[in-house]
């Protein structure tokens, strides 16, 4: 299944909108086209020289980004419900109703959080953070307690 949706950019030129999720769980809508190059994506576009028609053959995130936790929304939906599941189809319908794809009037509603794929929540909970952010803990048994001089003086163990 395609991970992007197609729309018309300025002057009716073919453009794609590819929803992605960052390692922090932010959902972004990356625009791309033949003259609008996204440094996040590897894109293959074909031009038919006879008809002048352009076609987006493929658009995917660069592998270096995927290794650090970026993912397309299509991949996250696919991981939860397989190819073209009901939530992904609903997500495509919602995209078509937004101003990003030229809907008039457009919807202002966000896509319902409860239908987002689990991968988004995992990223928002820090599952794909690059930094090791674990708290530093020293076992109590290893902590050496320094005796209190005040207590020692009270007990007569130390001279004042």
């Amino acid at each position, binding site marked *: 299944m395609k991970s992007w949706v197609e729309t018309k950019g300025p002057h009716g030129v073919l453009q794609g909108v590819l929803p992605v999720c960052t390692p922090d769980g932010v*959902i*972004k*809508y990356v625009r791309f086209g033949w003259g609008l190059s996204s*440094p996040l994506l590897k894109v293959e576009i074909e031009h038919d020289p006879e008809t002048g028609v352009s076609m987006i053959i493929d658009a995917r995130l660069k592998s270096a980004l995927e290794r650090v936790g970026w993912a397309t929304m299509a991949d996250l939906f696919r991981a939860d419900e397989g190819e073209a599941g009901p939530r992904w189809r609903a997500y495509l319908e*919602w995209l078509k109703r937004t101003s990003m794809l030229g809907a008039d009037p457009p919807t202002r509603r*966000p896509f319902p959080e409860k239908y987002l794929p689990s991968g988004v929540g995992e990223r928002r909970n820090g599952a794909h953070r690059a930094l090791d952010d674990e708290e530093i803990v020293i076992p109590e048994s290893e902590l050496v307690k320094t005796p209190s001089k005040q207590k020692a003086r009270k007990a007569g163990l130390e001279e004042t």
Partner: protein
Amino acid sequence: MATQAGFNTTSVNDLISGVAIDDLIMGANVPAHVFMGLAKIVDVPPGSDTYRFPRWDTVSVSATLAESDEAAFTSITTSAESVNGSVYPVRSFLSDEAQHDAKLTVEMALARQAEILMDGMDKNFLAAISSATNTSNHTGVALDLDKWEVAKTAIIAKNPNAGDLVFIGTPKQVGDIETAIRSNGGGSMVVGAGSELFNSMPLSVYRGLYNGVHFFASTNVPDSGGADASAAFMVAGAAIGMAFWFRMKSKGVDAAGRAGVDLMSYARYGLTIVNQNNLREVISLKS
């Protein structure tokens, strides 16, 4: 008293011309273009269909050299983003009838086509913000000074290249900052630090300076989701590159078999983010 026969608009209606039309055609309702001042604009020399924007990578050298020892070699590397050009055309047929009856000239028609082309360049330029890797996410909420300053600090922490730091957002996103200025400190910022932005011309795309950052408001800022838009901090001339294979060409052809001229204006260009550290996307409510 009854009307009198004589000269009236009915009896001499043949002498009355049609609707009087203002010679000055008002402009279309589009935002003023920002790409000319904010993009890194280059002209591609002949011989290539791809243009590359290179940059130096950050290199740290901290080793010292012991006496009589030999220095180690340091690798100096570059990164780059490449872009292909696409031809963006605006084509229209100007009929002889329209030239005569509407007093439209070929020059007027080509000038209008050029304006439309530049509107498209502006939209495409700002659409590139959606490819930013540095993002401040405030989906579903309005901007305020705290959120704005955290985002500003975040881009500065990336050591962006020297240049004017710009914030561009929708009128609502810029308006949210103005609202925050108005309500902060009992309104003292309206005449203090925030006075230039708060008192700027509301119909101008350039809105003034606040906290060392130039503010622009444009409805061409790309949407993000249902109710949000992708505003951005960027270093002017160093964040998004526009490579032009040719900037603007126009041609008119007398169309055989038709009474008129086939007009086309077109430009060939490509866009990409040239340095992610010079750009930070800020997602918040757009209107």
